[in-house]
């Protein structure tokens, strides 16, 4: 892992020094062990702030929305994991970014660590640093102690089902591609589908009752790139501010539906939710249905391909008589 981090720093410094780009977006480290967050590097000498560790989860592609529009013709370099690359392609397809102005450095990703899974087992005690070594995580404590645990047990659920760990879009790939061994991703959806309507409604009503309408799931989403979001409109006021069950349901149904056919299944919505609503399952239900009715489609894989809900076939099936 150290090697990749060195490469990242080197490349960032080089592209800034050569004037190829004006800004490099990567990750840097905070004071606490889980804090690996987006870094905006504009000077060569700052490149040493960049890091790579198994906690670099925030998706960087979304920042192009803000950084490109503010910088005119300037170019930006971006480090992309598999999910970040899908997100980039989606922004491209939605006409919200410009390929020529972005340099992508691909990072094959073998999964990122879910801090809450370490915490649940008390492994966060005195933790200073988490490193990946093959199939294991190396947990480094304050006093120089090291503990090794199987990595798979502590990765984000979304990483265990990841189907594109190797970036699908890049100008240069850093590191060796990793094997693709995703677990079945629709298990959760299928389980919910087994419930009857009443139970399913109560399940979601309970989940949505925790929603505090912080909009993190929308704001983190690379498919939620509207300049003015429907939920922020004053007139017509589609969504009121009251955290009523009906308003919460409206929010979550429309949020998921608005990214139908564009959701890259990166799972950031579920990750950022402070009250752990399984939001990714909503998006996955829609993905499953699109695949079933209108053919397999993976958003973000090929930006030239038409998204399923902006196109049609004259002999499409409909789902209007099912019950």
């Amino acid at each position, binding site marked *: 892992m150290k090697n990749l981090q060195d490469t990242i720093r080197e490349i960032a410094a080089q592209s800034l020094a050569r004037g190829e780009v004006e800004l490099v977006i990567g990750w840097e480290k905070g004071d606490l062990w889980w804090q690996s967050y987006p870094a905006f590097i504009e000077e060569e000498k700052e490149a040493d702030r960049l890091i790579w560790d198994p906690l670099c989860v925030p998706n960087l592609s979304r920042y192009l929305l803000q950084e490109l529009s503010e910088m005119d013709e300037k170019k930006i370099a971006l480090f992309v994991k598999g999910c970040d690359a899908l997100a980039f392609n989606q922004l491209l397809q939605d006409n919200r970014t410009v390929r020529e102005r972005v340099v992508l450095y691909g990072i094959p990703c073998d999964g990122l660590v879910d801090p809450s899974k370490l915490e649940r087992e008390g492994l966060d005690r005195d933790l200073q640093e988490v490193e990946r070594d093959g199939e294991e995580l190396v947990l480094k404590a304050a006093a120089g102690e090291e503990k090794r645990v199987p990595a798979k047990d502590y990765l984000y659920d979304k990483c265990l089902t990841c189907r594109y760990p190797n970036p699908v879009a890049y100008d240069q790939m850093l590191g060796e591609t990793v094997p693709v061994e995703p677990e079945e991703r629709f298990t959760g*959806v299928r389980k919910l589908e087994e419930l009857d309507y009443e139970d399913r409604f109560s399940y979601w*009503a309970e989940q949505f009752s925790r929603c505090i309408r912080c909009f993190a799931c929308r704001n983190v989403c690379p498919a939620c790139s509207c300049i003015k979001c429907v939920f922020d409109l004053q007139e017509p006021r589609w969504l009121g501010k009251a955290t009523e069950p009906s308003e919460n349901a409206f929010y979550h149904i429309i949020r998921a539906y608005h990214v139908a056919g564009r959701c890259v299944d990166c799972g950031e919505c579920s990750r950022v939710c402070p009250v752990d609503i399984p939001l990714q399952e909503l998006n996955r*239900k829609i993905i499953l*249905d699109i695949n079933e*009715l209108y053919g397999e489609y993976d958003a973000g894989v090929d930006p030239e391909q038409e998204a399923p809900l902006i196109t049609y076939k004259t002999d499409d099936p409909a789902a209007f008589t099912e019950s």
Partner: protein
Amino acid sequence: MSVAREEHNFEPLIVAFCCNWCSYAGGDLAGTSRMSYPPNARVIRVPCSSRVSPNFILRAFQRGADGVLVAGCHPGDCHYITGNYHARRRLSILRRFLGFMGVEPERFEVHWISASEGGKFAEVMTEMPEKIRALGPNRKLRDAR
């Protein structure tokens, strides 16, 4: 469903979004042909079935609809050439999604009714309330305030 039995004389309230070019005209034909059908639906005229945003459908449920109907031209007959082809995909996904949220699919129907199908319009308007009557009043998604 038990709510239905508690509430006597339950009359389903249906919000029907009808495409201006076909289904709304089909409704007119049903009227001028003096066909009778129950008055459960409140018709809202829209330019095309693809105009119907999921926001409209959810808002109808929020404000008290027991069922929502979207009616448009038969695929291939869209006044705007392709509108209802798009609607077919979008509304199919939405219908399944509402089912996933626990809303019975019978509460949300899509029918293709042409301007010459006054009979079909009356038929849909007769059948849908009956299906919903069996389900009872909708409480899901409704704003209780």
